[in-house]
């Protein structure tokens, strides 16, 4: 019940919250604890809740091809984030200061690229990459990730630019500064936190991708999410490695999303509510 806001929660409410939290998080914790179990322990029934943890799964991941795919994930996510920021931040600034007609139509067109289901882009990208030889390359992934990260930057950065008082810019312009200087030296420093939050969200979106990497990569550019799924093979499922690989894939996500949790909703909805 919403009711009047209380300064402290009642005991009953705290218990309810605790139980809900345990129920909601236990599937996630189950994967995590499994990554520290040997394969014998994983298959033991009933599952032992108290056991001596082992790093065996992580060590065998480290010795295999997994680190290479982890690096591919890091590179494709970082480069596409950088590209989207370099292109998108100035564009968002221009859009936020643009009073002309056509702003809504343009904004909507940019938004649709973000809402389209991935399969809509996969078929054309697949055919095109096959033709020019970009299949199974990190460059290919960077381009395809930019197709959804660039609209995100343009949408997410606009509200940040709108918080910068225009009188400040006008004063500098009247003093003879060029728009470029105003943008680089006055406006940009004021929106640094926004850029950081946007960058992290871009990185997460690219890092979380499974679909594009599944279709556009084979071996050389295979990303970590696809590599984990490859442990589910015909000879049997290597649950230990699946759990350890899954835990490694989610580690950066958990750290980063804590850092930007305030901006999560605006990032996920990419500003659509503002039309």
């Amino acid at each position: 019940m919403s009711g009047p806001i209380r300064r402290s929660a009642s005991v009953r409410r705290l218990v309810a919250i605790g139980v809900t939290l345990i129920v909601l998080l236990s599937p996630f914790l189950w994967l995590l604890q499994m990554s520290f179990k040997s394969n014998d322990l994983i298959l033991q029934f009933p599952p032992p809740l108290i056991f001596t943890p082992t790093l065996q799964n992580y060590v065998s991941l480290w010795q295999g091809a997994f680190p290479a795919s982890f690096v591919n994930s890091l590179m494709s996510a970082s480069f596409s984030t950088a590209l989207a920021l370099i292109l998108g931040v100035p564009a968002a600034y221009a859009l936020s200061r643009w009073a002309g007609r056509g702003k809504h139509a343009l904004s909507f067109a940019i938004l649709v690229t973000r809402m389209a289901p991935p399969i809509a882009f996969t078929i054309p990208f697949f055919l095109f990459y096959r033709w020019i030889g970009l299949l199974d390359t990190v460059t290919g992934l960077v381009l395809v990730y930019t197709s959804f990260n660039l609209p995100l930057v343009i949408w997410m950065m606009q509200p940040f630019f709108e918080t910068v008082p225009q009188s400040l810019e006008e004063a500098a312009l009247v003093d003879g500064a060029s728009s470029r200087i105003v943008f680089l030296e006055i406006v940009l420093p004021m929106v640094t936190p926004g850029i950081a939050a946007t960058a992290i969200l871009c990185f997460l979106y690219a890092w979380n991708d499974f679909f594009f990497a599944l279709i556009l990569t084979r071996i050389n550019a295979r990303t970590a999410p696809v590599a984990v799924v490859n442990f589910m093979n015909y000879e049997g499922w290597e649950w230990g490695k699946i759990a350890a690989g899954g835990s490694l894939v989610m580690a950066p996500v958990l750290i980063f999303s804590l850092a930007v949790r305030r901006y999560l909703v605006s990032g996920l909805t990419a500003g659509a509510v503002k039309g």
Partner: protein
Amino acid sequence: MSGKGLVDAERRRFNAFALAPSLIVLFMIAGLPAIYLVVTSLTPFQLVNPGSSTDFSSPLRNYRLLPDDPRFVNSLWVQAKLSFCGVLFQVLLGMLLALLLHTQSRVVEFARTFFLIPMVLPPIVVAIIWKLIYTPDISPLYYAAGLLNIAMPSLTSSVDFALTAIIIADTWEWLPFTFLMVLAALQTIPDEFSEAALVDGANRLQIFFYITLPFITPILVISGMFRLIDSVKAFPLVFLLTGGGPGSVTEVTNYYAYLLAFDFNEIGYSSSVTVVMLLLVVSVSLGVVWMGRRREAMA
């Protein structure tokens, strides 16, 4: 020309330079692919048959086949069931969770962050987690059911339960999103409203139905629409948990388009399925933007 005019002209030039690269790149990596998708959908393109990519002799053939393709019709139906139930559960449970966590206690504020975890996890990790839970020999769920002497059917391979299994996993993943949206809306309700109602002798249920609910209804609708748009992207769950099966019980449109293009080699036909899907998504998106504007106009 006045000084102000010179400044304006310089500013317009700068804006154009700032905007142009993005628009050009977006056109190349999103606009052109979309156009190419439509072009491909007008051909009987198969990868094994190179000439077929430029065969425009019967451009609407794919679209004419669609209504009579039982798998396509089935996939729309499956998608509708998945989207409807998923969105309904997520909005209702998200609202309940938000009501539970809407207090000013430090402990609760700290706990809130942990409720967001399922949503930020990589979708494929979410799929792996639920694969674990739905695999009888290692699942804690099956173990618990065994302790209670409940005979559990194999959820993901049963015609009756497979789609429900996916809806449960999807709800787990996206419940935090509706929760966050509703929580944000709850925080905009002025305290005085419910305080005044309490003084007037209203009970909690009355406060909820007459004060809280009207306040958060727009957000419930908008977050539901967002989830509706995104529910066509539930690919990793279907891919890993059921592979569209058993039969085609969980074969959503997205997954059918994927199979058509990359398993059955029917690129042209798959493109036409995708174009139809895209049109549906765009119309729902237009609805969201329209509602958002109307809401802003009302505020």
